[in-house]
């Protein structure tokens, strides 16, 4: 009888022991696979923050709220800024304040308006202008079409790559936009308007991919249809949520002085806020990583001890095989095959557990992880766990194999 046949029979003819070992390893593999994938996603939690601007001006709020609201398209609906402020900054006009201060704005390189004005399904629509597509250091490129912002051609949108893919839209198609100013959880579709797709962006693997872009004029018209706007804005629909600003090296101080001290807005610097974010989440990530490693280690040790006990209990069986003329190599091969088969079967079941539970875990963790639209996670990302499990189950045979090589057959049989 071949070594592999012996291994196979040993597995299937001890159903209780095999099922227990299989279940323990499969659960460990499934659990570790999910942990590994969550860890990988968590590492990418803020990789989806869009690039582009040096600073963001928003309504007074926490700096991280402004950063994530503007560049990661997440969080609650942000507060409003008067559109006049944008016009002033865009014109680079000098501003004279009542206290006599005179601020010149020639330090601005680029200012881009940014207004969340509607939703298309679950995707946010941003009203902006063409400057958003061409930052001095970073450009959004079009896969097809263009951004139409001529006043005589209203009702056009540009789609982020994920939006186009998920909603299966292309140039010339229409998409229904429902006004959104954050007053209701579910925007009322009856107030919506159909817009025509004029362009589709290439993927940036950032939050830009999850947005639709229309003109400021169209965006402000959309929110004007929202009855609750007056409760949120003292400036009517003549508003913005953010201004994305590009600055020269010496522009940081003056803009902070202007915006934070003298307007309803607040400026945050993108690089500094990202650093702040990393510092805040770094400790949590380290603890999470340590706990994950500990769980994986404990699971691995529990399974290893179970397997070592299983193979160790086979002393007499191995002695019988040796007495019947099986060489040490043949018996060792049978043991290794049994460990390998057990590992492979457990990985197959573990991967199914992984596939079944991962979406649920991702849903439970919600915004603690990057959006599935931007950062996907496939079952193959658990492959290192499978490899480790197969190696570990095979390696757990080593102790009995070492004993086999030193076994006194006569004593083992007599006892």
């Amino acid at each position, binding site marked *: *009888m071949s070594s592999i046949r012996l291994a196979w*029979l*040993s597995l299937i*003819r*001890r159903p209780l022991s095999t099922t227990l070992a299989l279940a323990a390893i499969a659960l460990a593999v499934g659990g570790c696979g999910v942990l590994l994938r969550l860890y990988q996603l968590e590492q990418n939690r803020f990789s989806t923050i869009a690039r582009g601007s040096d600073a963001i001006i928003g309504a007074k709020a926490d700096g991280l709220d402004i950063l994530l609201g503007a560049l990661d398209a997440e969080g609650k609906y942000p507060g409003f800024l008067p559109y006049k402020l944008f016009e002033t900054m865009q014109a680079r006009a000098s501003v004279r304040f009542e206290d006599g201060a005179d601020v010149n704005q020639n330090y601005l390189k680029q200012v881009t308006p940014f207004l969340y004005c509607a939703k298309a399904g679950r995707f946010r629509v941003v009203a902006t202008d063409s400057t958003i597509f061409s930052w001095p250091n970073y450009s959004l490129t079009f896969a097809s079409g263009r951004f139409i912002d001529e006043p005589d051609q209203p009702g056009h949108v540009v789609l982020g790559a994920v939006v186009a893919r998920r909603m299966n839209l292309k140039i010339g198609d229409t998409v229904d936009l429902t006004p959104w100013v954050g007053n209701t959880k579910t925007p009322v579709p009856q107030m919506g308007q159909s817009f025509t797709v004029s362009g589709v962006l290439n993927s940036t693997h950032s939050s830009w991919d999850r947005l639709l872009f229309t003109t400021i004029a169209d965006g402000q018209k959309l929110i004007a249809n929202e009855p609750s706007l007056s409760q949120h804005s003292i400036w009517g629909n003549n508003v913005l949520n953010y201004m994305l600003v590009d600055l020269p090296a010496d522009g940081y101080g003056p803009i902070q002085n202007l915006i934070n001290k003298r307007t309803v807005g607040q400026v945050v610097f993108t690089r500094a806020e990202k650093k702040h974010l990393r510092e805040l989440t770094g400790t949590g990530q380290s603890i999470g990583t340590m706990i994950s490693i500990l769980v994986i280690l404990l699971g691995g040790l529990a399974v290893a001890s179970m397997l070592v006990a299983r193979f160790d209990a086979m002393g*007499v*069986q191995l*002695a*019988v*095989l*040796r*007495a*019947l*003329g*099986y*060489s*040490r*190599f043949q018996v060792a091969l049978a043991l290794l095959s049994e460990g390998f088969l057990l590992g492979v079967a457990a990985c197959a079941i573990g991967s199914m557990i992984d596939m079944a539970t991962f979406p649920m875990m991702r849903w439970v963790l919600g915004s603690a992880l990057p959006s599935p639209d931007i950062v996907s996670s496939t079952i193959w990302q658990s492959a290192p766990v499978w490899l480790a499990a197969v190696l570990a189950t095979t390696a757990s045979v080593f102790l009995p194999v070492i004993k086999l090589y030193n076994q*006194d*057959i*006569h*004593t083992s*049989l*007599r006892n």
Partner: protein
Amino acid sequence: MLAGLFLPTTGRVTVGDHDLTAMADAHRCQLRRRHVGLVFQKLNLLDHLTATENIILAGGVTRERATEALKAVQLSGRENDRAAWLSVGEQQRIAVARVLAGEPDLLFADEPTSSLDNRNAQFVIDALLKAAKGKTLIVVSHDQRVASSFEHVIEFDRWAVHSKAKGPT
């Protein structure tokens, strides 16, 4: 020791032309597999294997040959029963069938009838003697009736060893 399961600390063990003490372990295994049949006192069947599978563990035994051997020890129809499900007497007969199926040149049987009634014991001894025709069969037994079936009996009585040869049975 004669089967090469363990080696003496001094001296030599020779089986036929083969010096077991001078052989590598792999060669001793090969020799055991091809030329030696063992019936252990504790039977040492693998509980999770069927009667047939326990028999074909012995080297070069086909399924057909295993079925024939089971028939020879009156266990026809029990081919697919696991060893653990059988009585001790039946297990003992499987252990004997394993030796019969392997057709070895040298047979060792340690108390091969210890768990059998008189009728089955005689049946097993007859089967072993039949399989050992023209070969060497060494049986260890406390049962005088078993001893009486053999050509050459060596008695161990405390420290004394008595050897007596008889005519063939």
